[in-house]
């Protein structure tokens, strides 16, 4: 513990030091422009004369500085960098972020920076204006949570989420607002000039919960899915509700008098705004999905469509003054499903990364800024008002959860118990949105400083106190947990199975509830929506996609295990062999099953060839080698396995089958001559670009022959053994890939000639394959036309694959 404490301190010191350096560099900058101006008269000669009595000639300046020109973007960049560095700092020592939520740390850093700025009498840049916040900072945050909303559990708990988000927020705003208004009537506190509208406005601001910190805790301790999704959904939709209330109350607060009819208009407007936002979101979501149907030729800008459409939805909704948050959330929810099937794997990864990045930078900045503002702004401190705000926020939240749960529980399949309710109530942290809303209050609210102060207090209080204590508390009361990260095919299959079963049982009982509606929607979706919106509208269930994912993961893992050094290669061979050996006995099943197993296994044993990366043009992306290849191989092997019924059992297995068959077949005797002739041929054809081919036949043999060894060295590849699998696979993959490889201008010619070479053994071999495949043959060597990824890219690709949720 001592050690960790000291390390903790060391890290903090490091971060602080780092920030100081950064801050120093930033802090020094503002004076510079003037200095630059005085030092360099040629830039602004009108300033010059006083400092330099002897005017310099207007020569061509050798060195100039024009700081004001870049000041704003420059400072914004520095702020972002600073915040990002802080984030790096937190994760240097990961235990910090386990016990202290990241938002706390960010605020702390902000406080420190603010203190420094305050001591040098520096004003924080006035970047956070109402427009900046609503047009640039809010959309990424909302898009982030909307896009990564776990769709299935969300819709399973849709009613509860909306119930808590809409009714809960209304409950909180009205409850807190009314109680505070009552407090204002007490003369002793000196806040009697705050009227009801302003109280309600303030209450609306502070009823926006923002449980990012809580969510990460929930995720870590893996609380049950229902609780998680309700907290998640609540924070998302109550932003929308809050913003609507905010704009309504700001409007009302400026009105001299409120008439009863205005209240009804307000209620009406509330629905118009919310539902209108949803409608726009759905509309733009479908348009986006439809657009991505046609983007296969312009992959490099594919991700852009997603961002632009979401943002467009947001802006258009803003234009009509309806809930833009609602619009962007529904847009993201609607298009996600379709878009991710339309766009390429790489674009999909890009989209996810960028969404996450934008969202987190935006939030980081707000928290950071909060810390700074806390120190540098002028506060109006009123003990009574602020303490009562805290108390009411706490009480109304707790009461709200308690009451609302009692109402919603009879309608839930899995009701919330007391522990869940506690988690729900205690998870009501206030965060970035509240602060930003308070900070951007119009100036004609005469108690604005008090509101800002109170908001900051409540944020600091909830984020620090509740944020830090929620993990131990949740663990202590032992909230029901679910393992949400089970990524096995069986679980996925049963998940689906259960849905169908439930729908069936509901039909039997003659009830309509959400399984019924889901069933109906899925049917509609498969029949109509997918046909319109998705390019390749073969329905792909989540099981299939999970299967793909696992397959990909598997391949990546194999890559990982071997990428060490060449000496690891043989061991992988034996490992694979072993794996295969272990699967073989698993069936006393049909011989066909045995073959299927081998198929699966061999499919999964895949290694990516590593080559120097092909140079890519300005407008094209480096090819998406691996993912595509793996999937192509999958399709190819599936297609191949389509035939087994007719061929495998009766005729002698096709040659390609040999590769996936366990050793012991008579391959050894058959292939060595082939391989030798290959080697001869290829040595002259292409040395570097085409290495793996040679080792192609080495796999089925347990001990590579002596002849193999020099070839391996030549390859300079680390993962020789499994390449064979790829080769074998990609040969058949050629068929499916030919269209895509044709437009690949970088296809090196050697492979083609290689493919058509007149090596008689190979021809025979090929012929055999084609006969088995019954497909028009295309130049089989086209596989080499696919430029492979270079090594460094692999690690880049991998994490998103694994982290996908």
């Amino acid at each position, binding site marked *: 513990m001592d050690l960790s404490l000291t390390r903790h301190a060391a890290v903090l010191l490091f971060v602080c030091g780092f920030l100081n350096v950064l801050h120093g560099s930033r802090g020094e900058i503002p004076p510079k422009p003037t200095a630059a101006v005085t030092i360099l008269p040629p830039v602004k000669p009108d300033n010059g004369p006083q400092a330099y009595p002897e005017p310099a000639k207007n020569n061509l300046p050798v060195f100039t500085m024009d700081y004001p020109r870049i000041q704003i973007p420059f400072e914004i960049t520095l702020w972002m960098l600073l915040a990002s560095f802080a984030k790096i700092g937190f994760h240097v020592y990961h235990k910090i972020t386990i016990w202290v939520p990241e938002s706390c740390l960010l605020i702390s850093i902000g406080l420190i920076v603010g203190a420094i700025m305050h001591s040098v009498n520096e004003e924080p840049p006035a970047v956070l204006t109402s427009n900046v916040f609503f047009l640039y900072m809010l959309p990424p945050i909302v898009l982030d949570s909307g896009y990564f909303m776990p769709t299935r559990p969300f819709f399973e708990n849709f009613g509860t989420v909306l119930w808590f988000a809409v009714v809960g927020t209304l409950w909180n705003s009205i409850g807190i607002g009314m109680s505070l208004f009552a407090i204002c009537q007490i003369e002793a506190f000196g806040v009697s000039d705050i009227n009801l509208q302003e109280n309600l406005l303030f209450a609306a601001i502070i009823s926006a919960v923002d449980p990012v910190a809580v969510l990460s805790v929930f995720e870590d301790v893996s609380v049950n899915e229902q609780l998680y999704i309700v907290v998640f959904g609540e924070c998302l939709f109550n932003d929308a509700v809050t913003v609507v209330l905010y704009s309504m109350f700001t409007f009302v607060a400026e009105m001299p008098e409120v008439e009863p009819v205005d209240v009804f208009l307000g209620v009406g407007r509330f629905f118009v705004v919310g539902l209108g936002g949803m409608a726009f979101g759905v509309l733009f979501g479908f348009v986006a999905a439809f657009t991505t149907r046609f983007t296969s030729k312009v992959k490099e800008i594919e991700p852009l469509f997603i961002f632009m459409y979401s943002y467009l939805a947001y802006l258009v909704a803003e234009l009509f003054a309806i809930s833009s948050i609602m619009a962007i959330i529904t847009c993201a929810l609607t298009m996600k499903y379709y878009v991710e099937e339309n766009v390429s794997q790489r674009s999909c990864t890009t989209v996810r990364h960028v969404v996450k990045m934008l969202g987190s930078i935006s939030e980081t900045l707000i928290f950071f800024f909060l810390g700074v503002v806390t120190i540098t702004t002028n506060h109006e401190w009123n003990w009574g008002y602020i303490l009562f705000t805290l108390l009411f926020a706490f009480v109304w939240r707790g009461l709200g959860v308690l009451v609302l749960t009692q109402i919603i529980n009879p309608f839930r399949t899995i*009701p919330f118990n007391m522990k869940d309710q506690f988690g729900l109530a205690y998870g009501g942290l206030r965060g970035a949105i509240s602060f930003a809303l308070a900070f951007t209050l119009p100036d004609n609210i005469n108690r604005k400083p008090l509101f800002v102060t109170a908001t900051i207090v409540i944020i600091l209080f909830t984020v620090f106190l509740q944020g830090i204590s929620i993990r131990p508390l949740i663990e202590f009361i032992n909230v029901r947990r679910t*393992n949400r990260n089970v990524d096995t095919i069986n679980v996925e*299959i049963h998940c689906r*199975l259960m849905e169908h079963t439930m729908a*069936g049982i509901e039909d039997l009982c003659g009830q309509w509830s959400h*399984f019924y509606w889901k069933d109906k929607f899925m049917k509609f979706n498969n029949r109509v929506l997918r046909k319109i919106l998705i390019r390749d509208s*073969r329905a792909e*269930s989540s099981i299939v996609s999970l299967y793909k994912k696992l397959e990909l993961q598997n391949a990546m893992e194999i890559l990982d295990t071997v990428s060490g050094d060449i000496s690891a290669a043989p061991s992988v061979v034996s490992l694979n062999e072993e794996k295969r050996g272990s699967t073989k006995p698993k069936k006393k099943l049909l011989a066909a099953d045995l073959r*299927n197993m081998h198929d699966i296994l061999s499919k999964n044993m895949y290694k990516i060839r590593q080559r120097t990366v092909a140079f890519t043009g300005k407008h094209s992306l480096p090819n998406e080698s691996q993912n595509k290849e793996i999937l192509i191989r999958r399709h190819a092997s599936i297609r191949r396995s389509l035939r087994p019924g007719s061929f495998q059992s009766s005729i002698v297995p096709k040659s390609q089958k040999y590769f996936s068959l366990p050793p012991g077949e008579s391959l050894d005797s058959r292939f060595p001559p082939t391989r030798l002739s290959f080697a001869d041929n290829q040595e002259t054809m292409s040395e570097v670009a085409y290495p793996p081919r040679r080792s192609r036949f080495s796999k089925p043999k347990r001990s590579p022959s002596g002849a193999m060894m020099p070839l391996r060295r030549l390859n300079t590849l680390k993962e020789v053994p499994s390449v064979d699998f790829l080769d074998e696979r990609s040969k058949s993959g050629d068929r499916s890939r030919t269209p895509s490889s044709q437009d690949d201008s970088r296809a090196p010619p050697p492979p083609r000639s290689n493919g058509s070479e007149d090596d008689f053994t190979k021809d025979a071999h090929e012929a055999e394959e084609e006969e088995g495949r019954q497909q028009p043959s295309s130049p089989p060597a086209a596989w080499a036309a696919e430029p492979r990824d270079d090594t460094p890219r692999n690690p880049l690709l991998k994490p998103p694959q694994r982290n996908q949720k």
Partner: protein
Amino acid sequence: MGALQSLSGHPEYIDLAEKTGFSFEQIGVLHKRFKQLSHNEGTLRRAHFNEIPDLACNPIRAQIVEAFFDKRNFHQNDDGTIDEINFEEFLVVMSHFRPPALHLTEEQRGNVRKEKLRFLFNMHDTDNDGTITLEEYRHVSISMLSPGRKNVPLMVVEELLSRSGSLEKETAKSIADAAMLEVASISMGHMEPDEFYEGITFEHFLKLLDGFEIESKMSVRFLNMDATTLCK
């Protein structure tokens, strides 16, 4: 409504409620539905189930219907199938889908879980030999993944296999295989080369779905109110 209240006073309902854990209202609703399905006869046959229009497109309709005629699901330590079921049996099968109670100890939760998993297991294990073989497992995944062929009864999977050359079905097949592989690796760990993996036993099944929250997934909210009039 008035009819319901009088039903709840029905003496045999008390017995049923004890046995299945349903409330009187729920039993009343289900009884009404039962009578509707069976055209006011005392028993339900498979043909009655096949008449339900909404169920017709359910990909695993056959399994669901079979489950109602499977004696293993009647809590009577009996096996085999029967041709018609009475209301009590109908209710007992339905009771497998009751959501877990609000407050449960870990042990009770484990029992609920086990019971639900047992139901699921029986659904897979069509020949009642205590193991789910690859073939049996495949039926399920294939029927779920081939939406176009939902209406083909599962008895004719072989026919289905030969008739459709679609990618989906093959994918389904290989997925079932992969799933089976997964089962093997989870339940057996490392296997000796000459060992057989015969199929999933119930213990393995439990282990396999360890992280799967069946008690909340396999729950239907049975209505207290009569909603059947709304449906076809």
